[in-house]
């Protein structure tokens, strides 16, 4: 008798667990020749809301994790991804990439994680300042995570785009909810499995799959989201995000769709984008 293949059910990644969408909806993803690859969860706004609650809950503890430890955890993600490289290459190939470019993308994603792991205890020194003031105060500004960050990952590249937006926010002490590429979502959920086995505390990274059109306005209006990172070039969408985000003065950060293919895809300034500057006036004796 022929063996039946066992196909993986791709689910969401919320609070360190892999639940199905509460809505029970799904959407099919096909390869380039039209064959069904998988039924992905079509996350609802309630899934997003639940993700925000989990991210908020995980935030204080993740912020307190030492820079060294955050760096180690990011490096650990890179290690685990390296070990499962073949699986990711297969999944990217299923999305229509050549073997060679799939391999290139997975390796770039791994390298990006190592890159940001390295920045973990360094970006603070770059962006914090001691400020000259005309009174007897020691005045200094330090960077702190904004808090909960919602991210819309670029449509392509499916894996590298996701990792390149996620790593800088997470290494900066934020907890994130990331909506994966709609057309190339397979690796996003497999990447969640990598995160799950890499000492990343539950709730620090939450991954949704679904339609940007359905979720983006809720990501923008949610009062408990502190920053929204949007990767896409559509001017109307950007305009609408800016307007909807104004209610709680949510920070909005826009990147172009092709940002990640270029040299500028890795930069400490991407970490800075989801940091806020806090200034302290500390009295000193007059000199």
């Amino acid at each position: 008798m022929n063996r039946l293949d066992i196909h993986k059910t791709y689910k969401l990644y919320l609070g360190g667990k892999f639940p199905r969408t509460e809505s029970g909806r799904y959407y099919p993803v096909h390869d380039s020749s039209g064959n069904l690859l998988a039924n992905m969860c079509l996350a609802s706004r309630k899934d997003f809301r639940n993700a925000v609650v989990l991210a908020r809950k995980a935030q204080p503890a993740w912020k307190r994790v030492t820079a060294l430890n955050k760096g180690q955890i990011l490096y650990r993600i890179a290690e685990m991804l390296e070990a499962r490289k073949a699986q990711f290459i297969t999944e990217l190939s299923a999305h229509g990439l050549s073997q060679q470019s799939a391999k290139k993308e997975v390796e770039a994603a791994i390298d990006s994680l190592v890159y940001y792991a390295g920045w973990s205890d360094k970006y603070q020194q770059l962006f914090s300042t001691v400020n000259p003031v005309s009174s007897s105060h020691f005045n200094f500004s330090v960077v702190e995570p904004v808090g909960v960050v919602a991210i819309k990952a670029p449509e392509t590249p499916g894996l590298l785009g996701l990792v390149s937006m996620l790593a800088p926010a997470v290494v900066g002490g934020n907890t994130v909810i990331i909506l994966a590429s709609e057309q190339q979502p397979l690796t996003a959920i497999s990447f969640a499995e990598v995160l799950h086995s890499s000492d990343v505390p539950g709730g620090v990274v939450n991954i949704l799959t679904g339609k940007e059109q359905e979720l983006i306005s809720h990501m923008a209006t949610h009062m408990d989201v502190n920053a929204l990172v949007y990767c896409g070039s559509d001017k109307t969408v950007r305009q609408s995000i800016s307007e909807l985000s104004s209610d709680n003065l949510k920070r909005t950060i826009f990147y172009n769709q092709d940002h990640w293919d270029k040299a500028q895809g890795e930069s400490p300034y991407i970490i800075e984008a989801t940091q806020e500057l806090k200034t302290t006036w500390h009295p000193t004796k007059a000199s």
Partner: protein
Amino acid sequence: MVAQLIKMLPDLHNIPLFDATGVNERIDRFCKRSIKKNSKASGLKLALSMVDLTTLEGKDTEAKVRQLCYKAMHPHDLLKDLPSVAAVCVYPSYVGIAKKALEGSAIQVASVATAFPSGQSKLSVKLDDTRFAVDQGADEIDMVISRGAFLSGNYQYVFDEIAAVKEVCGKAHLKVILETGELDTLDNVRKASEIALYAGADFIKTSTGKIQPAATMQVTYVMLQAIKDYYLATGKMVGMKPAGGISTSKIALQYLVMLNEVLGERWMNKHYFRFGASSLLNDLLMQLVKLDTGAYQSPDYFSKD
């Protein structure tokens, strides 16, 4: 006086027993109702009007109690047509302050008494405690039963104690806390409810909030059934107050569904049902604002007390 004479411990050998599996199945069905839009809004407002806003901490101060009273009167002024909460619940030493702060509003002042939360003291001390709270102006007294006596089978003692406290309460309403988290079985919960109901409770209440588990739907269901049977036997309507652990609107609505389906519409108001809670209030407000604006809310924009 006739009522006093017929007040006696009911026959506890002959009360319904509860099967945990059956209760769970019934509860499951309460939790599956879909309540949306307008009905959700009115459910949330009803729940809001039933909240006993509570602070029972060693670190309570006069200022904190005053702040809580303000919050009780003005839950969220940005929303129009909001009811105020039903009552503010404090320790006896803050009853006077709460009473003054709530002057002119319809909000009741409830006070815990009788050596709350353990109830481990002699009767005269408990009665003094109650008297003090009543003298300070408490409209409602939340007493605890002696769980030690109950668990050793001394039901008559528990009954007499409740009856004695009821007498001291005078006009004040008496809520009897069973502390179901310490009673172990649903049958014990039913038994304790029975004792409290026949001893003259105006409300029966699940928990002090100091013991885990506090209110659960299971024990609340058993207590609602006891209230129903008591009503059928005597014609007297007694209220129900689940307290502790009810922190989200979703759970509050599920309790209301259960209340409606077990006791019916006549119990669906603050005179016969209360939520003992502190964090529930903000969650109700956040949900109401969400219905109003369409945007999910953040606790950052709601006052803590």
